């Protein structure tokens, strides 16, 4: 049997063991917000959480990512590509929905002729140890986007919280190897596995938000110029909250920073969001997406229309962060509902016409 048992008291032992070889990232509480950070002491690990505020994409797609550094010596410029991309990370306690976002990221960054090595290298060096989601939030809707609170794909190891202990289930070869090295883990009993299954069922039933994406793609594709977008963007502030807290948002900006006093600098990439008007502003002054309605539309279109078109996937993992943290409660669930409804009205219209 592959499944093992990890007692809650053994977390610190696990951390001590793995911290030697890996950078150990886990959810931790900082000023009231749960975020993923590099752990230095096992006491910082906070596994009893719903979901982190800032998605764990931050670990492999950091907010500030150095592309390269340079030294300026008179007229000579030297590019110092010193950054070591060969990392060994463990992302511990990640939720299955966020793990799915890693898959979306990977899919996007290796799509096409050019691959994004900055991301892919780090992703390949990262091991995901997920934890089943016993208490999904009301705003969660992972089951509507091919997800599940206990989804195993895209994880290397899945933990299930059984109260006093965790059931440890290796999934990939990488995960199995890791478990083999932790010989002090005890074997799981049939009862434990059954309990985990029950929890999974229970969690699935808890998810109350059911979204229907059946018609969404078609409706979005044919309603680019709908008045609906005006309605949707009406209350939007135009801030970057939804994008910065979204586990699937990949957009970035590239800038050069100079350290004038030491004749050096660096080119970095930082998170950017399509909600800012500067995002598409061209030097000539022309801006293809100048109005808030266009930017709002682009966001929804990108996730639920362009993404399926290009990669045959919905660009959303159903974590519900954007619903929960939107400052003006511009609820994604309502937006999708409205989009789905367009068609029905149109159908009616057509029906009337046909009669």
């Amino acid at each position, binding site marked *: 049997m592959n499944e093992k048992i990890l007692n809650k008291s053994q977390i610190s032992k696990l951390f001590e063991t793995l911290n030697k070889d890996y950078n150990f990232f886990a959810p931790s509480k900082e000023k009231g917000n749960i975020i993923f950070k590099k752990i230095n002491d096992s006491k910082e690990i906070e596994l009893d959480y719903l979901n982190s505020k800032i998605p764990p994409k931050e670990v492999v797609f950091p907010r500030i990512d150095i*592309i*390269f550094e*340079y030294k*300026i010596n008179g*007229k*000579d*410029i030297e*590019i110092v*590509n010193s950054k070591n991309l060969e990392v060994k990370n463990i992302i511990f306690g990640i939720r299955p929905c966020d793990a799915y976002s890693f898959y979306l990221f990977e899919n*996007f*960054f290796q*799509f*096409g*002729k*050019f*691959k*994004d*090595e*900055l991301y892919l*290298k780090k992703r390949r060096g990262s091991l995901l140890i997920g934890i089943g989601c016993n208490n999904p939030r009301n705003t969660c809707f992972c089951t509507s986007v091919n997800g599940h609170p206990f989804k195993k794909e895209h994880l290397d190891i899945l933990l299930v919280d059984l109260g006093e202990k965790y059931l440890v289930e290796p999934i990939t070869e990488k995960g199995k190897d890791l478990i083999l090295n932790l010989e002090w883990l005890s074997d799981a009993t049939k009862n434990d596995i059954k309990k985990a299954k029950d929890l999974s069922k229970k969690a699935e039933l808890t998810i109350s938000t059911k979204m229907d994406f059946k018609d969404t793609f078609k409706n979005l594709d044919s309603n*680019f110029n709908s008045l609906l977008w005006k309605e949707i963007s009406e209350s939007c502030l135009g801030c970057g909250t939804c994008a910065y807290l979204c586990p699937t948002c*990949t*957009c*970035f*900006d*590239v*800038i*050069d920073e*100079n350290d004038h006093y030491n004749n050096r*600098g660096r*080119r970095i*990439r930082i998170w*950017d969001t*399509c909600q800012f008007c500067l*995002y*598409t*502003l*061209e*030097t*000539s002054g022309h801006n*293809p*997406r100048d109005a808030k309605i*266009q930017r709002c539309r*682009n966001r929804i*279109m*990108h996730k639920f*229309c*362009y993404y399926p*078109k*290009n990669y045959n996937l919905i660009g959303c993992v159903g974590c519900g962060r954007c619903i929960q943290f939107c400052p003006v409660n511009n609820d994604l669930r309502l937006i999708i509902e409205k989009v789905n409804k367009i068609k029905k009205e149109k159908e009616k219209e057509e029906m009337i016409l046909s009669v």
Partner: protein
Amino acid sequence: MYNSYIPMLTAIKGIVSENKVNDIKTFELSFKNEIDYDNFDYVPGQFAEISVIGKGECPIGIASAPTEKGSIKFTIKKMGTVTTGFHNCEEGDIIGVRGPFGNGWPIEKMKGKNIVIIGGGFAFSTLRSLIIYMLDKENRADYKKITVIYGNRDSGEVLYKRDLENWKTRKDIDIFLTIDRKEEGWMEKVGFVAPIVKEIAPSSDNAIAVVCGPPIMIKTSIQVLEELKFKDEQILNSLEMRMKCGIGKCGRCNIGNKYICVDGPVFSLEELKKLPNEY
């Protein structure tokens, strides 16, 4: 592994000022490493991300043709931070180049056709690349009649004067230059591009029209071309959008589900009509 975000280093070999106002210059860059040049395999119409290290990076269409060996050229107008940085550079300064990116003009598809090139103002750089490529000894036989219509605000703004004079002496290319208003000493046509196209009336038979220029010029020229019975798939267009990465990752250059930097910048009118009007 190859990291597509790291620029290759080049040095400025030559700077040519292109207009009277002196805000458009052509920079000739030669690669520091021979191997980088060998790998820099491009077709006309592609672009590269060039950077003044410390100022930033911007996408610029390649103005030289692959047939001009040894170096690459970019025609740059002084507009924002990076381009101003460029204009402050001198010969010998180091410039980073990444590329080539984008699809470029479909030179294979254009073989055996009559080519009508309509350009306006500063957007002529990738068209120059295309013309030089087609006029090359080895390639000229692949293309039939070549007609070039190139419009400018005034005579001082006309780019690539040396090339134009060179082309004028050739018999296998028809060049029509035009400026918006009459000027003393100007021997060529006067008027906007669209009416001139109408006047010349190139045949749409087995032809491909390449249109590149300011939006209003594109719009009016396309109307004229449609009058001349050009079909949507016969009209090619090069778009521009704000870009950062050039490789379809940074997200900002999308029109609908297409990224200009990898799926473009060249689109036929037929393809463009399928995309949302957001450019």
